Protein backbone atom coordinates (compact mmCIF):
# COMPACT_ATOMS: atom_id res chain seq x y z
CA UNK A 1 0.00 0.00 0.00
CA UNK A 2 1.44 3.36 -0.98
CA UNK A 3 0.95 6.50 1.08
CA UNK A 4 -1.64 7.86 -1.34
CA UNK A 5 -3.78 4.76 -0.67
CA UNK A 6 -3.89 5.66 3.00
CA UNK A 7 -4.88 9.23 2.16
CA UNK A 8 -7.63 8.04 -0.18
CA UNK A 9 -8.88 5.63 2.47
CA UNK A 10 -9.07 8.48 4.97
CA UNK A 11 -10.92 10.61 2.42
CA UNK A 12 -13.43 7.81 1.93
CA UNK A 13 -13.94 7.53 5.69
CA UNK A 14 -14.62 11.27 5.99
CA UNK A 15 -17.04 11.18 3.05
CA UNK A 16 -18.87 8.17 4.51
CA UNK A 17 -19.18 9.94 7.87
CA UNK A 18 -20.66 12.98 6.15
CA UNK A 19 -23.00 10.75 4.16
CA UNK A 20 -24.32 9.09 7.34
CA UNK A 21 -24.91 12.50 8.93
CA UNK A 22 -26.74 13.81 5.85
CA UNK A 23 -28.84 10.65 5.64
CA UNK A 24 -29.80 11.08 9.27
CA UNK A 25 -30.72 14.72 8.56
CA UNK A 26 -33.13 13.56 5.84
CA UNK A 27 -34.60 10.85 8.07
CA UNK A 28 -35.07 13.27 10.95
CA UNK A 29 -36.67 15.82 8.61
CA UNK A 30 -39.28 13.21 7.70
CA UNK A 31 -39.91 12.25 11.33
CA UNK A 32 -40.28 15.92 12.19
CA UNK A 33 -42.77 16.31 9.35
CA UNK A 34 -44.83 13.21 10.14
CA UNK A 35 -44.97 13.87 13.87
CA UNK A 36 -44.95 17.67 13.62
CA UNK A 37 -41.93 17.55 15.92
CA UNK A 38 -40.70 21.11 15.81
CA UNK A 39 -37.82 20.44 18.22
CA UNK A 40 -36.51 17.75 15.91
CA UNK A 41 -36.85 20.19 13.00
CA UNK A 42 -34.75 22.70 14.96
CA UNK A 43 -32.17 20.00 15.65
CA UNK A 44 -31.83 19.32 11.91
CA UNK A 45 -31.36 23.03 11.26
CA UNK A 46 -28.70 23.24 13.98
CA UNK A 47 -26.90 20.17 12.62
CA UNK A 48 -26.57 21.76 9.21
CA UNK A 49 -23.51 23.61 10.50
CA UNK A 50 -21.82 20.24 11.09
CA UNK A 51 -22.61 19.21 7.51
CA UNK A 52 -21.11 22.46 6.24
CA UNK A 53 -17.93 22.05 8.24
CA UNK A 54 -17.52 18.48 7.01
CA UNK A 55 -17.91 19.73 3.45
CA UNK A 56 -15.18 22.32 3.98
CA UNK A 57 -12.86 19.72 5.48
CA UNK A 58 -13.34 17.27 2.59
CA UNK A 59 -12.83 20.08 0.06
CA UNK A 60 -9.62 21.02 1.79
CA UNK A 61 -8.45 17.38 1.93
CA UNK A 62 -9.08 17.03 -1.82
CA UNK A 63 -7.15 20.24 -2.47
CA UNK A 64 -4.22 18.86 -0.45
CA UNK A 65 -4.33 15.59 -2.37
CA UNK A 66 -4.15 17.44 -5.69
CA UNK A 67 -1.33 19.66 -4.51
CA UNK A 68 0.76 17.04 -2.75
CA UNK A 69 0.17 13.83 -4.69
CA UNK A 70 -0.73 14.93 -8.25
CA UNK A 71 -3.08 11.97 -8.58
CA UNK A 72 -3.60 10.42 -12.03
CA UNK A 73 -5.87 7.84 -13.65
CA UNK A 74 -8.16 6.09 -11.12
CA UNK A 75 -6.70 8.09 -8.23
CA UNK A 76 -7.50 11.32 -10.06
CA UNK A 77 -11.04 10.16 -10.79
CA UNK A 78 -11.51 9.18 -7.14
CA UNK A 79 -10.54 12.64 -5.89
CA UNK A 80 -12.57 14.40 -8.60
CA UNK A 81 -15.62 12.24 -7.84
CA UNK A 82 -15.22 12.83 -4.10
CA UNK A 83 -15.21 16.58 -4.64
CA UNK A 84 -18.50 16.35 -6.52
CA UNK A 85 -20.06 13.83 -4.13
CA UNK A 86 -19.11 16.18 -1.32
CA UNK A 87 -20.94 19.07 -3.01
CA UNK A 88 -24.00 16.92 -3.66
CA UNK A 89 -24.10 15.70 -0.06
CA UNK A 90 -23.87 19.24 1.22
CA UNK A 91 -26.80 20.21 -1.00
CA UNK A 92 -28.84 17.29 0.36
CA UNK A 93 -28.03 18.68 3.79
CA UNK A 94 -29.31 22.09 2.67
CA UNK A 95 -32.52 20.48 1.40
CA UNK A 96 -33.11 18.69 4.73
CA UNK A 97 -32.65 22.02 6.46
CA UNK A 98 -35.05 23.66 3.97
CA UNK A 99 -37.71 21.03 4.65
CA UNK A 100 -37.39 21.69 8.38
CA UNK A 101 -37.77 25.42 7.85
CA UNK A 102 -41.06 24.74 6.07
CA UNK A 103 -42.16 22.60 9.03
CA UNK A 104 -41.35 25.43 11.42
CA UNK A 105 -43.14 27.99 9.27
CA UNK A 106 -46.41 26.05 9.73
CA UNK A 107 -48.05 26.88 13.00
CA UNK A 108 -49.94 23.60 13.16
CA UNK A 109 -49.18 20.12 11.90
CA UNK A 110 -49.69 19.44 8.21
CA UNK A 111 -53.09 17.91 7.57
CA UNK A 112 -52.95 14.07 7.44
CA UNK A 113 -55.12 14.22 4.34
CA UNK A 114 -52.46 16.33 2.64
CA UNK A 115 -49.75 13.85 3.54
CA UNK A 116 -51.83 11.05 2.05
CA UNK A 117 -52.88 12.92 -1.09
CA UNK A 118 -49.30 13.83 -1.98
CA UNK A 119 -47.74 10.33 -1.66
CA UNK A 120 -45.00 11.90 0.43
CA UNK A 121 -44.58 8.72 2.47
CA UNK A 122 -43.68 6.78 -0.68
CA UNK A 123 -41.41 9.59 -1.79
CA UNK A 124 -39.54 9.52 1.50
CA UNK A 125 -39.27 5.73 1.44
CA UNK A 126 -37.68 5.89 -1.99
CA UNK A 127 -35.33 8.74 -1.01
CA UNK A 128 -34.07 6.90 2.05
CA UNK A 129 -33.76 3.61 0.18
CA UNK A 130 -31.68 5.11 -2.62
CA UNK A 131 -29.53 7.06 -0.20
CA UNK A 132 -28.68 3.81 1.58
CA UNK A 133 -28.14 1.91 -1.69
CA UNK A 134 -25.84 4.55 -3.10
CA UNK A 135 -23.87 4.66 0.13
CA UNK A 136 -23.39 0.89 -0.13
CA UNK A 137 -22.39 1.29 -3.78
CA UNK A 138 -19.85 3.90 -2.68
CA UNK A 139 -18.41 1.82 0.15
CA UNK A 140 -18.27 -1.43 -1.83
CA UNK A 141 -17.33 0.25 -5.13
CA UNK A 142 -20.36 -1.47 -6.65
CA UNK A 143 -21.28 0.31 -9.88
CA UNK A 144 -24.02 -2.23 -10.63
CA UNK A 145 -25.82 -1.21 -7.44
CA UNK A 146 -25.23 2.47 -8.27
CA UNK A 147 -26.98 1.95 -11.61
CA UNK A 148 -30.13 0.54 -9.95
CA UNK A 149 -31.06 3.90 -8.49
CA UNK A 150 -31.70 5.64 -11.81
CA UNK A 151 -35.02 3.82 -12.22
CA UNK A 152 -35.98 4.53 -8.63
CA UNK A 153 -35.35 8.23 -9.10
CA UNK A 154 -38.01 8.17 -11.80
CA UNK A 155 -40.60 7.30 -9.12
CA UNK A 156 -39.67 10.53 -7.35
CA UNK A 157 -40.00 12.47 -10.57
CA UNK A 158 -43.45 11.02 -11.19
CA UNK A 159 -44.72 11.83 -7.71
CA UNK A 160 -43.33 15.32 -8.07
CA UNK A 161 -45.08 15.75 -11.44
CA UNK A 162 -48.42 14.72 -9.96
CA UNK A 163 -47.95 16.81 -6.83
CA UNK A 164 -49.21 20.10 -8.27
CA UNK A 165 -52.44 18.47 -9.40
CA UNK A 166 -52.91 16.53 -6.15
CA UNK A 167 -52.27 19.53 -3.96
CA UNK A 168 -54.47 21.79 -6.07
CA UNK A 169 -57.27 19.28 -5.62
CA UNK A 170 -56.59 19.18 -1.89
CA UNK A 171 -56.78 22.93 -1.59
CA UNK A 172 -60.00 22.89 -3.63
CA UNK A 173 -62.06 25.91 -2.89
CA UNK A 174 -60.86 26.28 0.70
CA UNK A 175 -58.67 29.34 0.59
CA UNK A 176 -57.40 28.71 4.13
CA UNK A 177 -55.50 25.65 2.87
CA UNK A 178 -53.46 27.55 0.30
CA UNK A 179 -50.48 28.41 2.48
CA UNK A 180 -50.13 24.90 3.89
CA UNK A 181 -50.57 23.46 0.41
CA UNK A 182 -47.86 25.64 -1.09
CA UNK A 183 -45.52 24.97 1.80
CA UNK A 184 -46.05 21.27 1.34
CA UNK A 185 -45.48 21.52 -2.39
CA UNK A 186 -42.10 23.11 -1.64
CA UNK A 187 -41.22 20.13 0.54
CA UNK A 188 -42.09 17.76 -2.31
CA UNK A 189 -39.95 19.76 -4.71
CA UNK A 190 -37.05 19.54 -2.27
CA UNK A 191 -37.38 15.78 -1.98
CA UNK A 192 -37.34 15.51 -5.73
CA UNK A 193 -34.11 17.54 -5.72
CA UNK A 194 -32.65 15.14 -3.16
CA UNK A 195 -33.33 12.36 -5.68
CA UNK A 196 -31.45 14.35 -8.33
CA UNK A 197 -28.48 14.86 -6.02
CA UNK A 198 -28.35 11.15 -5.22
CA UNK A 199 -28.50 10.37 -8.94
CA UNK A 200 -25.55 12.72 -9.46
CA UNK A 201 -23.64 10.89 -6.75
CA UNK A 202 -24.38 7.52 -8.38
CA UNK A 203 -23.03 8.92 -11.66
CA UNK A 204 -19.85 10.03 -9.91
CA UNK A 205 -19.35 6.55 -8.42
CA UNK A 206 -19.61 5.06 -11.91
CA UNK A 207 -17.23 7.70 -13.31
CA UNK A 208 -14.76 7.01 -10.55
CA UNK A 209 -14.59 3.26 -11.17
CA UNK A 210 -15.41 2.88 -14.85
CA UNK A 211 -14.27 6.25 -16.26
CA UNK A 212 -17.68 6.57 -17.92
CA UNK A 213 -19.46 9.90 -17.96
CA UNK A 214 -23.23 9.39 -17.67
CA UNK A 215 -24.13 13.03 -17.11
CA UNK A 216 -26.55 14.68 -19.52
CA UNK A 217 -27.26 11.46 -21.37
Amino acid at each position, binding site marked *: MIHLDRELEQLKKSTTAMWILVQSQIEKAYKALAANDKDLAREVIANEKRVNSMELKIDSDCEDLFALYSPV*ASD*LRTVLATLKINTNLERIGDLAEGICKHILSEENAFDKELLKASDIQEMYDVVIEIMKDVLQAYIKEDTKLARTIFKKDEILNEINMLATKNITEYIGSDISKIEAGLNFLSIIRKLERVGDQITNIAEEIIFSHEAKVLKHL
Partner: protein
Amino acid sequence: MVQKNKSVKELNPEYKLESRGLNLFYGQKQALKDVSIQMSANTVTAFIGPSGCGKSTFLRCFNRMNDLIEGVKIDGEVLIDNVDIYKNEIDVYEYRKKVGMVFQKPNPFPKSIFENVAFGLRINGEKSKSYIEDTVEYALKQAALWNEVKDSLHKSAIAISGGQQQRLCIARAIAVKPSILLMDEPASALDPLSTTKIEELIHTLKDNYTIVIVTHNMQQAARISDKTAYFYMGELIEYDLTEKIFTNPARIETENYITGRFG
Protein backbone atom coordinates in the same frame (compact mmCIF):
# COMPACT_ATOMS: atom_id res chain seq x y z
CA MET B 1 -5.40 26.35 -20.74
CA VAL B 2 -4.86 22.82 -21.97
CA GLN B 3 -4.93 22.74 -25.73
CA LYS B 4 -4.04 19.16 -26.44
CA ASN B 5 -7.50 17.74 -26.73
CA LYS B 6 -7.41 17.15 -30.46
CA SER B 7 -6.18 13.76 -31.47
CA VAL B 8 -2.63 13.91 -32.74
CA LYS B 9 -3.68 12.19 -35.92
CA GLU B 10 -6.11 15.05 -36.47
CA LEU B 11 -3.36 17.61 -35.98
CA ASN B 12 -1.04 16.05 -38.50
CA PRO B 13 -1.82 13.01 -40.56
CA GLU B 14 1.77 12.29 -41.60
CA TYR B 15 3.98 9.98 -39.64
CA LYS B 16 7.40 11.46 -39.13
CA LEU B 17 8.81 8.58 -37.15
CA GLU B 18 7.79 4.99 -37.19
CA SER B 19 8.98 1.58 -36.11
CA ARG B 20 7.63 -1.74 -37.28
CA GLY B 21 8.24 -4.99 -35.43
CA LEU B 22 11.50 -3.71 -34.02
CA ASN B 23 13.66 -6.14 -32.03
CA LEU B 24 16.99 -5.19 -30.52
CA PHE B 25 19.49 -7.47 -28.82
CA TYR B 26 22.52 -6.60 -26.72
CA GLY B 27 24.34 -9.87 -27.29
CA GLN B 28 21.94 -12.53 -26.00
CA LYS B 29 19.77 -10.09 -24.09
CA GLN B 30 16.72 -8.82 -25.91
CA ALA B 31 16.21 -5.16 -25.03
CA LEU B 32 13.33 -4.37 -27.39
CA LYS B 33 10.58 -6.77 -28.34
CA ASP B 34 8.51 -6.31 -31.45
CA VAL B 35 8.02 -2.57 -30.97
CA SER B 36 5.72 -0.88 -33.48
CA ILE B 37 4.81 2.77 -33.11
CA GLN B 38 3.95 5.79 -35.25
CA MET B 39 4.68 9.38 -34.33
CA SER B 40 3.19 12.28 -36.25
CA ALA B 41 5.13 15.33 -37.38
CA ASN B 42 5.17 18.35 -35.05
CA THR B 43 4.14 16.45 -31.99
CA VAL B 44 5.79 15.67 -28.68
CA THR B 45 5.89 12.01 -27.70
CA ALA B 46 6.97 10.96 -24.21
CA PHE B 47 8.51 7.56 -23.51
CA ILE B 48 7.98 6.46 -19.94
CA GLY B 49 8.75 3.29 -18.03
CA PRO B 50 10.97 1.95 -15.26
CA SER B 51 14.76 1.89 -15.58
CA GLY B 52 15.92 -0.77 -17.98
CA CYS B 53 12.58 -0.96 -19.82
CA GLY B 54 14.19 -0.09 -23.15
CA LYS B 55 12.89 3.44 -23.65
CA SER B 56 16.33 5.07 -24.06
CA THR B 57 17.49 2.21 -26.25
CA PHE B 58 14.44 2.70 -28.41
CA LEU B 59 14.98 6.47 -28.58
CA ARG B 60 18.55 5.89 -29.79
CA CYS B 61 17.30 3.68 -32.62
CA PHE B 62 16.02 6.80 -34.34
CA ASN B 63 19.49 8.21 -34.89
CA ARG B 64 21.23 4.84 -35.07
CA MET B 65 23.25 5.58 -31.98
CA ASN B 66 22.99 1.94 -30.94
CA ASP B 67 25.15 1.08 -33.98
CA LEU B 68 28.10 2.27 -31.93
CA ILE B 69 27.59 -0.35 -29.25
CA GLU B 70 29.36 -3.65 -29.75
CA GLY B 71 27.20 -6.75 -30.06
CA VAL B 72 23.99 -4.92 -30.91
CA LYS B 73 21.68 -6.69 -33.34
CA ILE B 74 18.57 -5.09 -34.73
CA ASP B 75 15.76 -6.41 -36.86
CA GLY B 76 12.53 -4.81 -37.95
CA GLU B 77 12.14 -1.36 -39.45
CA VAL B 78 12.78 2.17 -38.22
CA LEU B 79 11.39 4.80 -40.54
CA ILE B 80 11.99 8.50 -40.79
CA ASP B 81 9.80 10.24 -43.35
CA ASN B 82 8.74 6.78 -44.54
CA VAL B 83 12.31 5.66 -45.28
CA ASP B 84 13.84 2.74 -43.38
CA ILE B 85 17.04 4.17 -41.90
CA TYR B 86 18.52 0.73 -41.31
CA LYS B 87 18.57 -0.21 -44.99
CA ASN B 88 22.04 -0.79 -46.36
CA GLU B 89 21.91 1.87 -49.04
CA ILE B 90 21.04 4.62 -46.54
CA ASP B 91 23.61 7.33 -45.93
CA VAL B 92 23.56 7.32 -42.12
CA TYR B 93 25.32 10.67 -41.86
CA GLU B 94 22.73 12.37 -44.03
CA TYR B 95 19.91 10.92 -41.97
CA ARG B 96 21.51 11.84 -38.69
CA LYS B 97 21.40 15.47 -39.82
CA LYS B 98 17.64 15.26 -39.58
CA VAL B 99 17.88 14.20 -35.99
CA GLY B 100 19.15 16.33 -33.11
CA MET B 101 19.85 14.77 -29.75
CA VAL B 102 19.88 16.22 -26.24
CA PHE B 103 21.13 14.19 -23.29
CA GLN B 104 20.39 14.05 -19.59
CA LYS B 105 23.52 15.89 -18.55
CA PRO B 106 24.27 19.10 -20.42
CA ASN B 107 27.42 18.40 -22.40
CA PRO B 108 28.67 21.64 -23.93
CA PHE B 109 32.08 21.53 -25.59
CA PRO B 110 34.83 23.39 -23.76
CA LYS B 111 34.54 26.22 -26.24
CA SER B 112 32.72 29.53 -26.36
CA ILE B 113 28.94 29.72 -26.47
CA PHE B 114 29.16 30.85 -30.08
CA GLU B 115 31.48 28.05 -31.12
CA ASN B 116 29.33 25.42 -29.46
CA VAL B 117 26.37 26.39 -31.62
CA ALA B 118 28.51 26.92 -34.74
CA PHE B 119 30.26 23.56 -34.31
CA GLY B 120 27.79 21.45 -36.28
CA LEU B 121 27.77 23.94 -39.12
CA ARG B 122 31.56 24.02 -39.33
CA ILE B 123 31.95 20.24 -39.40
CA ASN B 124 29.31 20.15 -42.13
CA GLY B 125 31.67 22.37 -44.13
CA GLU B 126 29.81 25.64 -43.80
CA LYS B 127 32.22 28.50 -44.58
CA SER B 128 29.99 31.56 -44.81
CA LYS B 129 30.65 33.71 -41.77
CA SER B 130 27.40 35.61 -42.08
CA TYR B 131 25.39 32.39 -42.48
CA ILE B 132 27.04 30.94 -39.38
CA GLU B 133 26.38 34.12 -37.38
CA ASP B 134 22.76 34.27 -38.48
CA THR B 135 22.23 30.61 -37.71
CA VAL B 136 23.84 30.84 -34.27
CA GLU B 137 21.52 33.74 -33.45
CA TYR B 138 18.51 31.86 -34.85
CA ALA B 139 19.33 28.70 -32.88
CA LEU B 140 19.94 30.57 -29.63
CA LYS B 141 16.65 32.43 -30.09
CA GLN B 142 14.83 29.17 -30.79
CA ALA B 143 16.35 27.73 -27.63
CA ALA B 144 15.17 30.77 -25.66
CA LEU B 145 18.74 31.57 -24.66
CA TRP B 146 19.64 34.50 -26.92
CA ASN B 147 18.56 37.27 -24.53
CA GLU B 148 20.64 35.80 -21.75
CA VAL B 149 23.87 35.27 -23.70
CA LYS B 150 23.82 37.72 -26.63
CA ASP B 151 26.37 39.98 -24.89
CA SER B 152 28.67 37.15 -23.89
CA LEU B 153 28.74 34.89 -26.93
CA HIS B 154 32.47 34.44 -26.62
CA LYS B 155 32.36 33.47 -22.98
CA SER B 156 33.12 29.82 -22.19
CA ALA B 157 30.06 27.60 -22.35
CA ILE B 158 31.29 25.81 -19.26
CA ALA B 159 30.82 28.99 -17.21
CA ILE B 160 27.05 29.34 -17.70
CA SER B 161 24.46 27.67 -15.47
CA GLY B 162 23.31 24.07 -15.92
CA GLY B 163 19.91 25.18 -17.21
CA GLN B 164 21.56 27.53 -19.70
CA GLN B 165 24.00 24.80 -20.76
CA GLN B 166 21.10 22.47 -21.51
CA ARG B 167 19.39 25.14 -23.63
CA LEU B 168 22.74 25.70 -25.32
CA CYS B 169 22.85 22.01 -26.17
CA ILE B 170 19.35 22.35 -27.64
CA ALA B 171 20.55 25.37 -29.66
CA ARG B 172 23.54 23.33 -30.86
CA ALA B 173 21.20 20.56 -31.98
CA ILE B 174 18.88 23.03 -33.72
CA ALA B 175 21.68 24.86 -35.56
CA VAL B 176 22.09 22.11 -38.15
CA LYS B 177 18.35 22.38 -38.92
CA PRO B 178 17.12 18.94 -37.98
CA SER B 179 13.42 18.13 -38.18
CA ILE B 180 13.48 15.75 -35.23
CA LEU B 181 14.70 16.30 -31.68
CA LEU B 182 15.38 13.32 -29.43
CA MET B 183 15.69 14.17 -25.77
CA ASP B 184 16.86 11.70 -23.17
CA GLU B 185 15.77 13.05 -19.77
CA PRO B 186 16.74 16.60 -20.74
CA ALA B 187 15.60 18.20 -17.49
CA SER B 188 16.37 15.56 -14.89
CA ALA B 189 19.60 17.25 -13.80
CA LEU B 190 18.07 20.73 -13.65
CA ASP B 191 16.39 22.78 -10.93
CA PRO B 192 12.62 23.47 -11.18
CA LEU B 193 13.03 26.89 -12.81
CA SER B 194 15.34 25.60 -15.51
CA THR B 195 13.05 22.60 -15.95
CA THR B 196 10.11 24.93 -16.56
CA LYS B 197 12.15 26.82 -19.16
CA ILE B 198 13.03 23.58 -20.96
CA GLU B 199 9.39 22.45 -20.87
CA GLU B 200 8.19 25.80 -22.21
CA LEU B 201 10.83 25.55 -24.89
CA ILE B 202 9.63 22.09 -25.90
CA HIS B 203 6.11 23.51 -26.29
CA THR B 204 7.43 26.21 -28.62
CA LEU B 205 9.75 23.95 -30.58
CA LYS B 206 6.92 21.60 -31.43
CA ASP B 207 5.82 24.01 -34.15
CA ASN B 208 9.00 23.26 -36.10
CA TYR B 209 10.20 19.89 -34.87
CA THR B 210 8.97 16.44 -34.05
CA ILE B 211 10.08 15.78 -30.51
CA VAL B 212 10.55 12.53 -28.66
CA ILE B 213 11.43 12.72 -25.00
CA VAL B 214 12.40 10.06 -22.50
CA THR B 215 11.49 11.06 -18.98
CA HIS B 216 11.19 9.56 -15.54
CA ASN B 217 9.14 12.52 -14.42
CA MET B 218 5.54 11.47 -14.89
CA GLN B 219 4.14 14.96 -14.46
CA GLN B 220 6.59 16.27 -17.02
CA ALA B 221 5.40 13.67 -19.52
CA ALA B 222 1.81 14.69 -18.74
CA ARG B 223 2.56 18.40 -19.12
CA ILE B 224 4.52 18.47 -22.31
CA SER B 225 3.58 15.53 -24.52
CA ASP B 226 0.77 14.93 -26.97
CA LYS B 227 1.16 11.18 -26.81
CA THR B 228 2.75 8.91 -24.26
CA ALA B 229 4.25 5.46 -24.72
CA TYR B 230 4.71 3.17 -21.74
CA PHE B 231 7.49 0.60 -22.00
CA TYR B 232 8.14 -2.35 -19.75
CA MET B 233 10.82 -5.00 -20.17
CA GLY B 234 11.44 -4.07 -23.77
CA GLU B 235 7.80 -4.11 -24.79
CA LEU B 236 5.59 -1.22 -25.75
CA ILE B 237 2.73 -1.83 -23.34
CA GLU B 238 0.51 1.12 -24.22
CA TYR B 239 0.68 4.10 -26.55
CA ASP B 240 -2.07 6.67 -26.63
CA LEU B 241 -2.98 10.31 -26.24
CA THR B 242 -1.36 11.64 -23.07
CA GLU B 243 -4.72 12.73 -21.67
CA LYS B 244 -5.99 9.19 -22.08
CA ILE B 245 -2.91 7.60 -20.51
CA PHE B 246 -3.06 9.85 -17.45
CA THR B 247 -6.81 9.77 -16.90
CA ASN B 248 -7.92 6.36 -18.04
CA PRO B 249 -5.17 4.06 -19.32
CA ALA B 250 -6.36 0.93 -21.07
CA ARG B 251 -3.82 -1.40 -19.48
CA ILE B 252 -3.58 -2.16 -15.78
CA GLU B 253 0.23 -2.28 -16.10
CA THR B 254 0.24 1.36 -17.24
CA GLU B 255 -2.15 2.37 -14.46
CA ASN B 256 0.03 0.69 -11.83
CA TYR B 257 3.13 2.43 -13.15
CA ILE B 258 1.76 5.95 -13.43
CA THR B 259 -0.01 5.77 -10.06
CA GLY B 260 3.15 4.58 -8.34
CA ARG B 261 1.85 1.09 -7.56
CA PHE B 262 4.33 -0.57 -9.85
CA GLY B 263 5.87 -3.76 -8.54
